[in-house]
Structures are given as structure tokens and as C-alpha cells.
């Protein structure tokens, strides 16, 4: 049931250290998915999938290291459905340049930061994707560019030839911000990924989430 709010529907975590995590939580709410803001290792244990939002990737990295969250997160993203947008995409890549920086390294891709220039070069485009439903609005803000992808990476959309929406197994990544558009197709696609993986038995633990945990109230 793609948009079910039934108590057994998966809880989607949104990493909430910094950035536009509230916009992602809103997008999830729009499509009837349950969400939880993730700030600690303990929060991670309650979610079936995770969104790494837009924001500043350098800030994410500093906070992940300081809160001893980098390794638990790395373990999570290796196995479980994860969706990164912009800074989140940078975090997921195997290699990051301009400048070089640490990353979770689960997406077989090289990502160049601020590759299209500064804020003045940010833009909104409407491009074709492999998702049904026609062209998709894409908001690029100080966007990174995926300059290289491995063989197992499926490219779902391109901008001037460069991949902008990609999937590799359990990992989905966009260099733009679907959370800043009204179109919810990409968030729905991600929920489907989570549900498919849950059905295949990839759950790390049974559903034992306390009633107080999954909530929109903490936004």
C-alpha cells in the first residue's frame, strides 16, 4: 500500500542535523508516509528508510563525526533504503571533489561540489526522467554534479548529459531538491523502494517502535 498511514507502514527517517529536513518531512506527510527526525544513533534504530536532506555537506560531516554518528550511519546506508538530495547526494558518493572530502561511500559515483557555480547560477529546470508521469520540475541550488558513475548505477535523469537522479540498489540520489517542488513522484518512488525492501525481508529489526516515537509533532 504505497501511501498507507497504517501503523505497519514503514517509518522514514530524515537526518535532521542541519538543512531543509522540515521540507522533506512535509513532503513525506503530503503523501501519507510516517516520518521521524533523526539526530541520534538511537533514532536510526526506529526507521525503515532514511533521507539525507539538502544543506551544507561540510556541516553534516562535522556533526556526524562529533556525535559519533558517522559509523552507525555508514552501516545503515550500506544495507537500508537511503535517499540523498544535493548535500545528501554528496554524502553518499564514493568520491567527492572540489574540494575532496570524506563521504559515506555507498554510491559508486564521483560528485563535484558547487559544480554549476555560485547561488547566482542556481536554477529551476523541467527535465525528462525515467519515472512515468512526464517531465519533472527540478530545483538546483548551488548544486553538485555527478561526474562519473559505476556500471551498476542506474541513471534515472540527466542534465546536459550528466546524471542528476541515480539509483544503485538501496541508494537513491538526486543533485536537485524534489522536496522544494510540489511534485511528489520521487518521494513516492523512494517509499516504494523502502516497501519493496521490507517485503524482501531486509528489515534489520521487528517493528517495536514506541508509540511516542514516530511523529510529525516534533517538526
Amino acid at each position: 500500500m504505497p501511501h498507507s498511514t497504517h501503523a505497519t507502514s514503514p517509518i522514514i527517517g530524515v537526518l535532521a542535523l542541519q538543512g531543509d529536513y522540515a521540507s522533506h518531512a512535509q513532503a513525506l506527510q503530503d503523501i501519507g508516509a510516517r516520518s521521524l527526525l533523526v539526530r541520534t544513533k538511537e533514532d536510526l534504530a526506529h526507521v525503515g528508510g532514511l533521507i539525507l536532506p539538502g544543506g551544507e555537506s561540510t556541516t553534516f560531516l562535522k556533526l556526524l563525526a562529533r556525535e559519533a554518528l558517522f559509523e552507525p550511519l555508514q552501516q545503515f546506508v550500506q544495507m537500508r533504503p537511503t535517499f540523498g538530495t544535493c548535500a545528501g547526494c554528496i554524502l553518499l558518493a564514493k568520491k567527492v571533489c572540489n574540494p575532496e572530502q570524506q563521504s559515506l561511500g555507498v554510491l559508486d559515483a564521483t560528485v563535484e561540489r558547487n559544480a554549476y557555480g555560485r547561488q547566482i547560477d542556481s536554477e529551476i529546470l523541467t527535465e525528462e526522467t525515467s519515472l512515468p508521469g512526464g517531465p519533472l520540475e527540478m530545483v538546483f541550488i548551488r548544486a553538485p554534479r555527478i561526474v562519473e558513475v559505476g556500471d551498476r548505477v542506474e541513471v534515472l535523469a540527466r542534465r546536459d548529459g550528466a546524471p542528476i537522479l541515480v539509483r544503485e540498489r538501496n541508494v537513491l540520489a538526486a543533485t536537485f531538491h524534489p522536496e522544494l517542488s510540489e511534485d511528489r513522484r520521487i518521494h513516492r518512488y523512494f517509499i516504494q523502494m523502502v516497501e519493496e525492501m521490507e517485503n524482501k525481508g531486509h528489515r534489520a529489526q521487528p517493528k517495536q517502535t514506541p508509540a511516542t516515537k514516530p511523529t510529525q509533532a516534533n517538526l
Partner: protein
Amino acid sequence: MTDHKNNGSGSHELRLKVGLAEMLKGGVIMDVTDAQQAEIAEKAGAVAVMALERVPAQIRAEGGVARMASIKKIKEIMSVASIPVMAKCRIGHFVEAQVLQELGVDFIDESEVLTPADELHHVDKHAFKTPFVCGARDLGEALRRIAEGAAMIRTKGEAGTGDVVHAVKHLRQIVKDMRQLTVMSEEELYAAAKEHRAPYELVRMVAKSGKLPVPNFSAGGIATPADAALVRQLGAEAVFVGSGIFMSDSQTFAPAKEAEIRARAIVRATTFFDDPKILAEASEECTGAMKGLAIAAMDASSMMQTRGW
């Protein structure tokens, strides 16, 4: 609904401007005066830096006319920072703003910290592709700036003092003004628009959503991790920290190591603003805070916050 959709004009340009402000949420924007400080700020986890020639505490102490920073200084900072770089122009000085846009800064702060260049008009911010942030002490001032095209509001504390009292006062004022609108009837909203001296359409939008149509950050006088968490708990979506990180007092820069520790602790407190356990740790990590200047002991004419109309 997310902020960008409520934005009166749904133009691509405005959505991109507000979009960058969205990316800075939950973070700390730090005032820096050279490349070394910019590197410290980025290393500490700042989401953006504000390129300045002098921090507000120095401007206050030294006096004279405060203008846009030197181009060389801004370029130096832009060359080392991988995070967004902001810079200030004087209130109403649209040519300084044109110059900053030409340089490619990511955000322009039309700031009361600099000496105003126009006693009546603010910059027409719709005329620029670069997003603007402006200060406000109450809802009317915030909505007038948004009407002029501001993509972000920062509530005005008293810059360069290290005293958080007015950041709190004005944040509470704006939150209260917004809450009052949400319970008003249609006809009361017309009267409220008049009282706030703000466009009716924006007043109505706030009445419906209970929040500003653009992100609302806090600035001015924030000097400790607890100060940052305080304004976050009061509703600020991110914080600007100026003199509080790199200054020991109004004339002296803190040692680099100390500034870095302070910057890191304030970043941590801004993220975990509602977790007292982490706030206690962040406060403990943080050694020294700027000596500061109590606002209660200040002469009203030396306040920067009253600039802007």
C-alpha cells in the same frame, strides 16, 4: 506547507532565493574578517560565512562610517570557503548591492550594522538575482522587507554587544505578532495590516500559516551555546553569530584555538537546541565568551537596531 510555496510571487527567482535560505536552516552563519577565520568557521561546521572588514563590536568601538567591505577582502574569503559567502551592503545602497552581486556573493545582507545610505528607502531587492536577508524588530518591519523582496529575515538583536536580550525581545515580538494574526477575523486583518504598516496580502498569508513566508533567523548579541539554543527554542530557524566567536572584547581577537572551540560548541548547540544534555556538554566545551556590553547601560542613540524603517 513549506515556506517557498507561500511566497506571494511564485516566481522561479524568488523560489531559488528562498531555497538557499532553506538550505541554511538549523545552522550557524559566522562573521569573518579574513581567510583564516573563514577556514576556522568552515572547519567548525558553519553553514555560511559573512565576509566583513570589521565585526560589529569593532565598528561600534571605532566609530566612523561603516561601509561595504573591501572587494579584496570579500574575494579573499570567497576563495577559501566552500560554503556560501554572504556580505553586507548599507541600507538603501543599491550600488553596493550591485557590486556584491557582480562579485558573486551568495547572499546580501542589507544591514543596520553599516551606516545607512538612505533615510527613507531600502534596496528594491526584487531587482536582484542574488538573495537578500534583512533585519526586523517586529512583524510589520519583517513584512515590509519581504514585500521589497527579502528572501530571509533575521530578527535584530543589538549587534556587537554579546548581550542577547534584544534578540530575544524582537523574536518574541514577531512570534507574538504572528500568533495574534492567526486568531483575527477577516475584517480585523485589514486593520492589522494598517497597524503593522505592512501589505495586506502578506498579513493575510501570515494569518493563515502562522509563520513568515520566508525563513526567520536570529542575529545580534548571540555569544554562547546557550544563547544560540535559546533563540532556536524561541522559534529562530538558524542563527547568525558575529562578534561572539572571534572577539574577546570589542578590540581584541580571541586566540584562534579558542575561537574554533567556541564556534564548534555554538554549532553543536544550534543543532541540538532542545537537548539539555548536549547543551550542557557544549557549554562545558566552550571556554570564554566575549566580555560584551550590557544593552541596559547603553545610550539609545548608539543602538544599531533602530536603523531601518
